[in-house]
């Protein structure tokens, strides 16, 4: 694989290996949305720490993690907001997807309702999130494909119709987990400064703060 996720990633700016000057670095804010227990936190844990916890705790409010990957000559830092899935926490969601450059909407391939819920999220993102947001649809728990309810083709078709990236993933086996983040990173614009307000994106959770953004990425 061309990319190597680096663990941790808590430290500020992405480092440039060997000081090669053509390396660029970008930060993107990414949010995970989807029904409760579909495996959002598990996907993040797999991506960020390479781990899987069977008894992953449920998420209340939201959790924040970061991870840095390199694609080609660019260092991409993801600032990831993992949100709570229970419908009741819905009112908090805009706080997290507002200003996000990317979203992964997750469903569980053995749960039809979670797929419907995913579609609702996509609609909401199209309506309310920033217009350039890159959305990926993840059909998680692909390791259980022998008891699947949501067909691959059905989801694939839906994703194509709505302009979404699509993969079936498994946080348990790691299948397609890095790949989906990578695909998103590839699709995000990295050269055009105007589209890249990533740096400090996590900070822009309050509307009144929008004018304070720093526009210092992709140096």
């Amino acid at each position, binding site marked *: 694989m061309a990319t190597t996720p680096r663990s941790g990633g*808590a430290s*500020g700016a992405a480092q440039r290996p060997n000081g090669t000057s053509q390396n660029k670095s970008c930060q993107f804010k990414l949010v995970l949305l989807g029904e409760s227990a579909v495996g959002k936190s598990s996907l993040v844990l797999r991506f960020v720490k390479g781990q899987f916890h069977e008894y992953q*705790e449920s998420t*209340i*409010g939201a959790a*924040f993690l970061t991870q840095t990957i390199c694609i080609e000559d660019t260092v991409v830092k993801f600032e990831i907001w993992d949100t709570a899935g229970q419908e009741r926490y819905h009112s908090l969601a805009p*706080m997290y997807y507002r200003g996000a450059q990317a979203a992964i909407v997750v469903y569980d391939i053995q749960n039809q309702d979670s797929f419907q819920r995913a579609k609702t999220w996509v609609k909401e993102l199209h309506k309310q999130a920033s217009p350039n947001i890159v959305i990926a649809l993840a059909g998680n728990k692909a390791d259980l494909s022998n008891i699947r309810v949501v067909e691959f083709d059905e989801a694939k078709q839906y994703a194509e119709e709505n302009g979404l990236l699509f993969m079936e993933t498994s946080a348990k086996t790691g299948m397609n987990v890095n790949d989906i983040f990578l695909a998103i990173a590839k699709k995000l614009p990295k050269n055009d400064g105007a589209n890249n307000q990533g740096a400090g994106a996590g900070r822009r959770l309050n509307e009144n703060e929008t004018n304070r953004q720093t526009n210092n990425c992709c140096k």
Partner: protein
Amino acid sequence: MANAPLNTKSNANPNATATAQPAKIETRLCAITFFARLHPGDVCGSNGLPLTPNSIAILGRAQRLRELEHENLCQYLDVIRGKHERTIVVSEYSGCTLEEHAKRSSLSQTQILRIFYQVACGINVLHAHKLVVHNLEPKHILIQEQDHVKLFNYGLYHMTKGGAYVPFPIGNIRYMAPERLLGANGNIKSDVWALAMMMLELLLQTTLWPKLKLSNIARKILAFGRSNNVLERIAREHDCYNLYQQLDVDVRALLERCLSVPLSQRPLPSELLAYPCFDPQREELRAPSNGTVDAAPLPLLLRCPLSQIYHLWQLAGGDVQAELKKEGLIRSEAPILALPQVVRLNGSSAGPKRSQSYLMDDRIVPLKLNTLVQRLRRLPASVYFPLIHSPRFPYEFAGEMQQLPLVIRERDIEYQFHRVRLFARLLQGYPHTAELLQREAAVDIPPLLRGPVWAALLEVIPNSSYAKIDKFTATSTDRQIEVDIPRCHQYDELLSSPDGHRKLKRLLKAWVTAHPQYVYWQGLDSLTAPFLYLNFNNEELAFLSLFKFIPKYLQWFFLQDNSAIIREYLSKFSQLTAFHEPLLAQHLASINFIPELFAIPWFLTMFSHVFPLHKILHLWDKLMLGDSSYPLFIGIAILKQLKSTLLTSGFNECILLFSDLPDIVMETCVIESQKMYESTPKSITHRKHALRQQPPQTLDIGIDDVELKHLLAEQCPRISAKDVLHLVQHAPGELALIDLRSVVEFARVQVPHSINIPFATVLLGEQRLDALNVPQLEMQLRGRVVVCVSNIHQHAVEFSQFLVACGILRTCILHKGFNVLHSIEPNILIST
């Protein structure tokens, strides 16, 4: 498992007899051990996740047995998991087995009847609890002095779910009723059969089928189906027809009924107890026994409940696993010896046979109490039986002990002994002892009694309402509850057991049903977990504790739309942070690190979602003693502990810190929050949505006075005139009142010792106290509650903000401004 002995008796280690000697007084506890059935290595549940180990399932099921207390039952005390699915059961044990007893001397008919009457009593109690024994045999009947009988190991069938969780069959085939051989289990009448078989063995002075193979015994028993008098048939087969004929008619009738093959003709244990042949035993047991009077008096310790004794035994260094090792019941073998030699691609392997140490070994290992008795011998009787209402109470027991860190106190055997005895007393007297209990709980709470102590602190009075609540009808929240439970504190053995899951589900459903105005929010599961963990066998107490806890600390939090409540709460949290940690609050505000992003799980679950259980217990020990504002101070104490990192970090680093909360030292956190809680005037914590004991009075902050918009606009909290008055009158040294009105107004009327800084004259641009040109201002404010007073509210708001920016601690604003002070009677104002 093919090589598991069906009849464990035949496999018993010859050493076994050594442990069955007449019990010395110190032998009250014992351990037995076995292995739970291993799941095949690669099998997952339908959700793709590993199956719950059977030993955990056993652990969960066994908890119920610990509640059984009856004179004819050995009390269960603990179930411990060892390595590789080893399960260890700790239980009461005293006397010698019936097997031994009968060998030692031949028993008279009266003695035999006396014994079996008590066995029937024991079975009857189990039946009332909907349990069956199914492994009744002479070595599970213990005889103490004066033929006092206790059943032992009677819970094995229940805890292993009828043997499903273990690789060996349960029960001695000799005493097995025919229906059980045909696979019909779970009927108490099968135990009645076993009782009769043991009884006839003694009465006919014979041993059942001593030389037959297991399969032949089974055939014999099954053949009873064709016989109309099993008793007679057995007597003939064992050459004791004579004895059979000499049997007392009543006794014979009883045995014949008990040995009826059709279940309908066999009596229930309760019917058995009413049989005429037991008349003398009934009489005997009803009459008060005078036996204990001449016997040597028991050491005081042994008069304490066994659960306490076992707890202390552990504190005194008792280690069940070590005892088993000593007896050779746990043998360690080099793991390399167990490696397979060949593994086929389909996963099956060939290699050394499983070691003998994995076989069922039913030896009983006594846990000796000598050391414990020795250690506690010196303590005066008053510690064993504290006289809480005597005028000399509280005596200064271990006053210096209480200076030591909690972890040390919790492991000190003498100290714990003292605390346990005291709290046990206080709980007996509850609710009359509520006040004393509260006072003692403020010192510390003994872990053994934490569940009931918390319940008492929450003013729970059990009223059997729990039983009446519907916990079963399906509702729309069921799915959420079902996906949350397997993610809730699953590192804990009890909570991860199937029984734990079932109980948590019932509690959550019951809570939702009992509160039509509320809904299930994710997080309620974590909030319930500590109560279930502490009251695993007393769901009602767990439920009622939760029931009281939520309104006390989380009033309205579980409304369908709780946003107003949460926003108010978090704003108050920000204000209090500014009050106690102005610089930190300033920094966090400047990087937009708002509590909405990290503190919702803290408060919604009272930290039970962010800390492991053992930390929550200590945190809640203190929380229970505080009011609804206490959790806010815990939050600040956490921030405080991370202060240096937070102050030097940007947004991302701060938020990362909280996504994976680093080790918080609970004891410091508890002490800090306690300090802040005590040094904060009550009105500072005012929230519209808190539960109130009394309606506010004139000088209090009115319920609806402070809206969310005020909280958001004001960095500093407001203080009520009442609290200011209190400070003026009782603690003027703790108050610094800054009067922001003009010099003229100030001269006309003022609070004594207040500092006049006319708002019109100050420039707030510079964030330095010196800029105010008030001599020694910092000194005058240090260590005091700084109250900003004006008649123009906005002035007070801006000035207080300035003080926070200057890092002044405990800054607040007088609610309703200076004019409210005029209404105080008697007058406190003066003029110059």
